[in-house]
């Protein structure tokens, strides 16, 4: 109705959806990169997919920068401004974790022993599912749709499952007879993978609080 008077707000909304699209592309590429490499270490495709993930990550940074500019231009009422900034700040940590995992795999030339394949695959799959649900939850929050709490509960379950896999994996790593140095490398990798679902859970809870806060 008054859209013509709110050009900056409309631009901000577009940017947030663009951010979420790129966020999705990042975790899709990440998944392909990890899965392509897990069974075939140092595969050619890995470098390409890592570069793609980095490209989308840098695109996301550009979007965040433009959003920051708009926010400092006093777009939105202060309350909404703070909510959106906190939300994006929390959400933006996830691509960072994904990048760290790929970075570790590439530069530490990590070869994941076959006996850990399944658990690592499960950990990545469940973590990325949590990210996908989180993306839907954020869209639902922006569009003021119902179901925010249900999304939060699902993400919470995913996070608990990830914690379980993470602990099980670390235990397996340290009871195996691989090189102690590789054990530490793998432990670090698993912890970093676990951070993905932890952060998704934190952001999801924040979205739920923001959604409740917006009710008068």
């Amino acid at each position, binding site marked *: 109705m*008054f*859209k013509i*008077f*709110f050009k900056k*707000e*409309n631009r*901000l*909304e577009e940017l947030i959806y663009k951010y979420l699209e790129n966020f999705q592309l990042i975790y899709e590429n990440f998944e392909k990169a990890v899965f392509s490499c897990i069974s075939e270490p140092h595969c050619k495709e890995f470098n390409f997919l890592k570069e793609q993930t980095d490209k989308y990550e840098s695109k996301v940074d550009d979007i965040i920068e433009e959003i920051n500019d708009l926010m400092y231009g*006093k777009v*939105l*009422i*202060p309350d*909404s401004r703070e*909510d*959106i900034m906190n939300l994006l700040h929390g959400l933006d940590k996830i691509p960072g974790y994904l990048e760290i995992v790929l970075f570790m795999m590439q530069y530490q030339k990590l070869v994941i022993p076959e006996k850990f394949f399944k658990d690592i695959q499960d950990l990545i799959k469940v973590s990325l599912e949590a990210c996908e649900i989180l993306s839907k939850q954020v869209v639902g*929050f*922006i*569009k*003021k749709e119902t179901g925010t709490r249900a999304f939060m509960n699902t993400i919470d379950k995913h996070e608990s499952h990830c914690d379980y896999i993470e602990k099980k994996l670390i235990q397996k790593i340290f009871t195996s007879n691989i090189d102690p140095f590789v054990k530490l490398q793998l432990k670090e990798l698993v912890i970093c993978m676990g951070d993905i679902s932890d952060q998704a859970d934190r952001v999801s809870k924040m979205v739920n609080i923001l959604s409740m806060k*917006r*009710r*008068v």
Partner: protein
Amino acid sequence: MIKFWTAALLASIFVILGALISGQAGIETLKGLTSFDLFQAVISSIAAALTISVMTFFGLPVSTSQAVVGAIIGIDIINSQLHLAGLSKVFICWFTTPVGGALITMILYKILAFVYNHLKIGLFGSDQLLRTCLIISGSYGAYVLGANNVANVTAVFVGAGTLSISGAALIGGLSIAFGNSYILKAGNGNHRQKVGIT
């Protein structure tokens, strides 16, 4: 949220409109309490302004209407001409206004909260709606301020026969509008925070 000069301009326009369109009734009511000459009108006006200045100095929020009516009563006592019928109307309003304000606020809050919570608009839509409502309610507030307070500024001069009602409404409206913009611009940050200008 809204730029200072935009807020000041909107407030000024609506204060003047309020004074011109709806200020006459208030002027007539306060005029009914007076039977002053010009000298007494000036004295009562200065006395009311001084009272408000002293209260403001001590950081006490006071009602302009009460200060003006007090000053009018002072002159009426000196003249031995208290207009009890008109005064009782004013006193009743002083007691009913806060109660009415509180009741209307509570009812309006419940209704608007219900409507707002059931609106099918997203975060950005509700932000735009709130900002639009803020501007509309601010302008409406300025309109009723002009309508109600113009009498405080000018009624004694209408009573003294130096101003017509419409002339008083115009001069009063312009004075309040100028005062709003000037005091807000010159005043400290607290003033601006009180009116929601960032």
